[in-house]
């Protein structure tokens, strides 16, 4: 690990023991005598580093080990093996100096006190994190402006909508201006507009405070908008670490060419696999490396009205990565 890294994980592992038994009364009785414990590996040795100020998307299907990794990085879970360092601290020791510099936001859990206005929870966080009064006021002012919190802060949290609550959760988690921000599904369950707003806010927070952000999300729009770099894990193993564009290149063997011709009946099968034919536009699937040549031929051979070359949607790419369809 270089001392300039904000986050560094080397061969990070985590396994859990779970007791299991067959269904049925007999098995239940048997489990009283002898419990069968099985070791389940959630994270099977992953290594990566993040530089200060980076925003990295952490991708993987459900159960891939994303949340477990975030919990190890934030200090909630003790790794079963490997090394991890965040801002030079060993997270699981949870030293106060470390905790004051990080935050973990989980889209499915709340830290705000349910029955009182968020502004009151903010005050409590101010005291807990020992934020000087003037810093606190200016941060609250900034976050209120960025997230358009205004009137929300004075309503009891339970009266807020899911999106409004998430905005307040984010603000509460960032009052102490953490240098490292772990976001676990921050936009889950939110409508498209609210997702976009949260996304915009994360980008602004990152720019304004130079914070390092590690984000998991099932919404590829979040990842495309925020992260140049992504880390993909599956079954607890690292599948890819690099630029999102490279991921697309590496894991998609094909591109799609959408052609609109003067003569809608023209047979295009000689140029590639025809996927669809709609309203005069034909969609072709073409091996990636042949795309320039095929495009050239179509343009030379046929009376083209319109032609576009596209990468498959990012969701499809990710699906292929998970399916191990790399080519």
């Amino acid at each position, binding site marked *: 690990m270089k001392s300039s890294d904000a986050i560094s994980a080397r061969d990070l592992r985590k396994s859990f023991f779970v007791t299991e038994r067959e269904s049925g009364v007999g098995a239940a009785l048997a489990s009283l005598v002898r419990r069968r414990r099985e070791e389940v590996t959630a994270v099977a040795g992953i290594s990566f580093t993040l530089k200060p100020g980076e925003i990295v998307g952490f991708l993987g299907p459900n159960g891939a080990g994303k949340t477990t990794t975030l919990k190890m990085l934030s200090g909630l879970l003790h790794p079963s093996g490997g090394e991890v360092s965040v801002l030079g601290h060993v997270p699981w020791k949870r030293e106060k100096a470390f905790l004051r510099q990080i935050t973990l936001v989980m889209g499915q859990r709340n830290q705000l006190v349910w029955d009182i206005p968020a502004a009151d929870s903010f*005050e409590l966080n101010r005291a*807990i994190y020992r934020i000087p009064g003037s810093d606190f006021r200016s941060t609250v002012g900034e976050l209120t402006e960025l997230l358009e919190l205004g009137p929300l802060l004075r309503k009891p949290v339970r009266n807020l909508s899911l999106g409004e609550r998430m905005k307040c959760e984010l603000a509460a988690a960032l009052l102490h201006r953490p240098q490292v921000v772990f976001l676990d599904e921050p936009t889950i369950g939110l409508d498209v507009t609210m997702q976009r707003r949260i996304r915009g806010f994360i980008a602004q927070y990152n720019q304004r405070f130079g914070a390092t952000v590690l984000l998991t999300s099932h919404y590829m729009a979040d990842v495309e908008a925020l992260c140049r770099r992504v880390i993909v894990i599956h079954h607890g193993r690292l599948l890819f670490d690099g630029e999102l564009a490279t991921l697309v290149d590496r894991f998609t063997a094909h591109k799609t060419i959408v052609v609109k011709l003067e003569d809608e009946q023209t047979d295009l099968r000689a140029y590639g696999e025809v996927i669809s034919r709609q309203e005069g536009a034909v969609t072709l699937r073409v091996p990636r490396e042949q795309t320039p040549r095929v495009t050239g031929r179509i343009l030379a051979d046929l009376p083209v009205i319109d032609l576009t070359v596209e990468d498959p949607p990012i969701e499809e790419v990710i699906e292929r990565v998970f399916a191990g369809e790399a080519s």
Partner: protein
Amino acid sequence: MTGVQDVYRQQFKTTLASFIQYRASIFIWTIDRILEPLIYLVVWSAVARAAGGRVGGFDTSQFAAYFIVMMLVTQVTYTWVMYEYEYKIRHGSLSFALLRPIHPIHTDLVDNISSKLITLPLMLPAAAVLVALFKPAFSPPLWAAALFVPALLLAFAVKFVVEWTLALSAFWTTRVSAVNQAYFVAALFLSGQMAPLSLLPHWLQVAASLLPFRWMISFPVELLLGRLTVAQAVTGLGAQAAWLLLGLLLLRTVWRAGVRVYSAVGA
């Protein structure tokens, strides 16, 4: 203002604001704490009258004194942490607490003290009414009245520390309610809540004194009722201090072990 004081002040405001949202429940819980000793008082007074005016050194007005003081001591010493930790651990809210740069016991302590302050205005008039109705008789010597204050505070400290530590059993078992039930039944008898300890069989009295129970509730009541000698009072304060120290040591050890388990099996 120091950092910790600031946290306590803010936590107090937060708890107060939350409680105001639940005033009906708070009211009912407080009524509960008034009714329980009242029922024992009525029952034991009836028993005393049937036995010709006295049972085990208590006449009706002494029973009245015992249970009214008991009610006030309970108000100062009650906690509900044992009910909370199972929820906190299973629903993951403890995770947020662990990621804050402050020990979670602070929050619980302020929460607890706040609730006592909030319900005190209900408790004191209730006590006054009971005094008027039941005419309790007790005249503690001045020294006993003076020692009552530290004894009461120590009783609360011991009870809080012991119950907070027991609450941590939720780190290991999902059957916390069984642990709670066993504890509360033992406490009901051995801390003198249901009957003065002097009415119990000798071996139970010994058990109550060897375990922390007597020192969590009964001891300050006995003290204020003037039923202890100076030597017994001093020994009692010593026992409280010893249990507090032992409790704190246990708390520290159990907390560390519990958090280790929590962070090993999934927070």
